[in-house]
């Protein structure tokens, strides 16, 4: 039994993380061509609208929430120390969970019912969509059935994740958790490991650098380029260098 726990909660997370980083980087560097959100809006836009917005924004909120509890467990515990704040926190979290669940269900239905969309759906798309559905459903179940999740996440799970990160894994707390929660943890690592092999990779290339970029991008292929007569031109050229070095590695 202990060996199984070690395998699932120590070995597997490390394997998943290594696969995520190495395979993800390899795909990004060598076949950047395949790194895409694979949007299907062009084929069907109306039903995508509510489902996609609900799903993506909810998931983003959930992800940030989990990340915050992982990063600042003490802050979360302090926040939850007052019953009102705890309840509000839980209700908000659960609403996002429900939103993500409904949104994803809508996306799946949309995909299944439209022949054009079925034509652009790969087996891997279905695998990750179903896994995500299970994962989010588990999360909602946990939020309902094992309260208060936000508190014990901070108290039990954050230390476990930190222990993984520090290279001295301690899984005592995880062993004691109910099966649903253990499945939720495993699901997270399965999804992580699948990122390099699925469309999930698009979540890890958010175009935030757009905010810092000048609108126009002028690239010179001559090594010398044209002497920058304007600061704008100089900036654009720096944009090129970044792009080129990004491609060269």
């Amino acid at each position, binding site marked *: 039994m202990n060996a199984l726990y070690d395998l699932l909660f120590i070995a597997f997370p490390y394997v998943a993380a290594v696969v995520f980083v190495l395979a993800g980087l390899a795909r990004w560097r060598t076949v950047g061509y395949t790194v895409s959100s694979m949007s299907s*809006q062009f084929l069907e836009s109306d039903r995508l609208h509510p489902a996609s917005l609900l799903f993506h924004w909810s998931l983003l909120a959930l992800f940030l929430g989990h990340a915050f509890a992982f990063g600042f467990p003490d802050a979360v515990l302090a926040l939850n120390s007052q019953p009102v704040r705890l309840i509000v926190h839980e209700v908000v979290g659960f609403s996002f969970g429900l939103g993500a669940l409904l949104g994803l269900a809508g996306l799946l239905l949309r995909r299944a019912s439209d022949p054009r969309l079925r034509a652009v759906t790969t087996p891997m798309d279905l695998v990750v969509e179903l896994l995500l559905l299970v994962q989010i459903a588990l999360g909602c179940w946990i939020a309902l059935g094992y309260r208060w999740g936000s508190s014990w996440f901070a108290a039990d799970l954050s230390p476990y994740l930190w222990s993984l990160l520090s290279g001295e894994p301690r899984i005592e707390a995880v062993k004691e958790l109910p099966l649903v929660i253990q499945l939720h943890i495993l699901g997270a690592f399965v999804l992580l490991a699948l990122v390099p092999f699925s469309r999930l990779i698009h979540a890890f*290339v958010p*175009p935030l650098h*757009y905010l810092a970029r000048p609108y*126009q*991008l002028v690239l010179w292929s001559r090594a010398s380029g044209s002497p920058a007569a304007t600061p704008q031109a100089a900036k654009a050229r720096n944009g090129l260098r970044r*792009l080129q070095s990004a491609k060269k590695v």
Partner: protein
Amino acid sequence: MDVRAQVSMVFHLDKCIGCHTCSIACKNIWTDRKGAEYMWWNNVETKPGTGFPRRWEDQAIYRGGWEKDGDTIVLKGAGKAKGLLNLFHNPALPVLDDYYEPYTYQYLNLIEAPAGEDQPTARPVSLITGRPMDIKMGPNWDDDLSGTPDYARQDPNLADLSLSEREALFTIERLAFFYLPRICNHCLNPACVASCPSGALYKRGEDGIVLINQDVCRAWRMCVTACPYKKTYFNWSTGKSEKCILCYPRLEAGLAPACMHSCVGRIRYLGVLLYDAEQLHAAASAPEAELVARQLDLILDPDDPAVAAAARASGVPESTLEAARRSPVYAFVKRFGLALPLHAEFRTLPMLFYVPPLSPVMASLRAGDGEDRPRHAVAKRWDEAGLYDTRMEELFADGACSRLSLRYLARLFAVGDEAAVAMRLRRLLAVRLYRRQQTVGDLDAARLSAALDAAGYTAETAEAVYRLTALAKFDERFVVPPAHRETAIEALEATDERKGAAGFGFNRAPRRP
């Protein structure tokens, strides 16, 4: 001054016969692939008409291009805030049905169908789902259908015309249309580039060609919205956007782009323009009435020694400068003052210019009514009963003579400025009269010189326009600047990485992962 070179184009609409050879040449080379079937990097539209995708010019629907915001300009349907907030669903994205569902026919059935009572048929099937389908739209569905309620009357450019003017345009006897071939304009202020959150689109510094880096595109789809000409297309199979590449691999080898090379009407010209990049932003944000003039002012005279010196200082190679001097585009746009940009009000500073159409020839064939009223000098007896009347001189005096409403042309080519279009037409007409005098000699000298004066042309200019329009050979129509591979990091790749690789194509099959 920051002088840059732009490979630019002129399409002479008087010469386009609407044969779509250009579209086919492009399709065969670049977009005959899964996911790209519906893309027509080059398409030819009938005007008045709705175009491709349907009603693309209506930015109330598609939200393309830039709009004025105080002293500056902002993207209408994209940009940093709008783009990032709309990543998960882009409200202004055209969808497949705005273009058409690509299809093929089950030709095999014609050969392989079992013997039966009926003739076997080749049913149309969707290239997306593989299912039988009813074809409801195609890339040139409105071809030659000007005048019909579904197409011509839906043309967004008719908004300026009064009801009676519209009716006049569509009365069957007066039915008039022309063809508008379109490719990417390789704009100086490209909205597509500015809209891409990933930074996948860029303008090449040396020649101004606008490209999409397929390795960087992440299918955020903003460029499709932002391009007011709808010349970026989303590949539904690979999840990447694609656009006209101005056949840059051909240009780098000194060849004309395929659409231009194959053009049956020889309407297409390609050459270098020099422009001052420092004035770009000001020109793009000018008040609407000044837009066309300001854009034309950006273009510098390559024969001016000061410009040449500034160009050298800005790193423009001598051979590019030489190409700019021989540029047919410079001749049409600046020297002859004949060509205008399409929809300058989108503020992308498009670098494809059009010579507006004078055709159809101002002629009417009517029954001779027996009365011997005075005729115009150029009206001819067709036969005993008919009169072939080419009342050219009345084109501008008498609005009713102009089949294509000036106001309509001005909407397309001059942000509504009818005088600018009228001037171009007057020049075209002057050249026709000049040539008529040369070949037929039935005009009086005063009339000809009046026409030339009104056009601001000398006989030499008229002759030059005629030569470039009608006689120019391949190497005069396409003046491709050398690519300078010796100093280039080839097509943005480090050569050592691609050593041994040859030809174009994908390192990896363009399949979904």
